[in-house]
């Protein structure tokens, strides 16, 4: 971990490049986007899932691993297209089905939602901090490979220091 006055920085591997930030949302069990997420309504619909009803829009979704149907890529791409998808995804395992949903959304629509994987200890730290929902997670990965997750206190006008003046 590194820290400066804008927040703490955690090492991650971007498996899909992109930019995104928001409050974290922890999925405590694996989710299949197909059959488990409604891309029109924008909420988790798997009955019995601990986060059933949760909305991913604008959230940095923390999900250890994915499960289930290979149709999940389409549902995720569609969710990103119509604004009901997550701002970014943090996972423990590389997952092609989740990654592809984001890759296709970026190729078709220029919407670059990053997917990063982190090691066990980073995952634990992020989950511990993130569950408070008072912080902002920011991922900015121009290319796949090593990148950093910035965690800073959440505020409604949370912006990165470099682009803070542009609006």
């Amino acid at each position, binding site marked *: 971990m590194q820290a400066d006055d804008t927040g703490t920085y955690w090492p991650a591997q971007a498996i899909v490049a992109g930019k995104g930030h928001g409050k974290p949302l922890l999925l405590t069990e694996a989710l299949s986007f197909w059959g488990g997420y409604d891309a029109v309504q924008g909420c988790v619909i798997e009955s019995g899932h601990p986060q059933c009803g949760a909305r991913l829009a604008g959230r940095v979704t923390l999900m250890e691993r994915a499960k289930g149907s290979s149709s999940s*890529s389409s549902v995720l791409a569609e969710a990103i297209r119509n604004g009901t998808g997550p701002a970014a995804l943090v996972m423990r395992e590389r997952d092609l089905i989740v990654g592809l949903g984001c890759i296709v959304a970026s190729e078709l629509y220029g919407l670059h939602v990053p997917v990063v994987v982190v090691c066990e200890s980073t995952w634990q730290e992020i989950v511990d901090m993130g569950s408070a929902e008072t912080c902002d997670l920011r991922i900015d990965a121009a290319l796949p490979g090593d990148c950093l997750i910035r965690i800073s206190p959440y505020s409604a006008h949370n912006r990165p220091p470099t682009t803070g003046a542009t609006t």
Partner: protein
Amino acid sequence: MRVLVRSAALMGAERLLDITSAHIDGCLYHGQASLDFVERLVAGAGKVVVPTTLNVGSLDLIHPELFRGDEAVKSQAQRLMQAHLELGCESTFTCAPYQSRHRPRLGQQIAWAESNAIVFANSVLGARTNRYGDFMDLCAALTGRAPACGLHLAENRRGQVLFDLQDFPADRAGRDIWFATLGLFAGKRVGTLIPVFSGLPLDTNEDELKALGAACASTGGVGMFHAVGITPEAPTLSHAFGGRQSLRTVTVSRVQLQRTRAALSRARPGDRLVAVSVGTPHFSLAEFEQLLGLLAAEDAGPRIDFYVNTSRFILWQLEQCGQAQALLSRGITIVTDTCTYITPVMKQTRGLIMTNSGKWAHYAPGNIGVEVAFGSLRECVRSAVRGEVVLDAG
């Protein structure tokens, strides 16, 4: 190709390898993104370069009158299926492409999508595919290449978690439900690891393995399993694990399976049913024979709607041998090209619906908002005839 290369990088693959067939799961309409992707490839005059089958779509093109949903969605869904044909895919529209005459052989590299087809190809046929999803499968079909990683490579096909079955029901009649239950049970416990089942009946058939794999891939991210003494890469326990140790062992008793089954459905004997739906994954010819046998054993036909999902090719074979007419006259509705839990074809979805499919039981409540009763094919038939849930004793 760019999507493929980005995906290869994602998976950490150093090279691509040649594939001999592809199975595409992009025909289900999940919204505008599904269509935008394929239309871009059609506009670029893309064509598949290997034999390519198609998974179910959102419509039964053979029986379009069954569709009860939104007209705009219907026409988008129809266009999506048509666009895939324009890319050179075969009009199979089935989630069980392994039930056709041409199926991959042991050791062949393929790029298949559809979670149950992936598990079946890897486990039962011994062909090699990763868990491909929408988009990637089509990219592989258009290029004939796939990233060389994961289950494509022998060293990643070794079993990891042992499920030691103590007293798995051996009696053929009614045991289908226990394969589905075992799949749901195991999938939940292994995540994406490779389970090894030891203690399944040695006369386990392909339909039972199909039910097991489909259920495993619903509650977990399972891409492959081994059944010791049954599946081709697991003649012995030691082969199944590639000479290594199991990461962990789970002992499974019949009581545990009964508990898993009970947890899935609150339905009790005597509860009123509105319909039965079987054939998820698509029914095989052998399963239709079984169904006809079970129907013949009853004095009357079903009193409620009884849906069977299958492929158009199986339907044509049923028509040729006269069985389709026999099923129709007994009140069975055959649905092809799609499946009852992904598209509005069932007349009634309020109330209790019975199935023998672990996959249907797992997904249908979220997808189409139904309540599920879970029973063997025999229990489904007996229940349909009485219009209420009938379960075997014990």
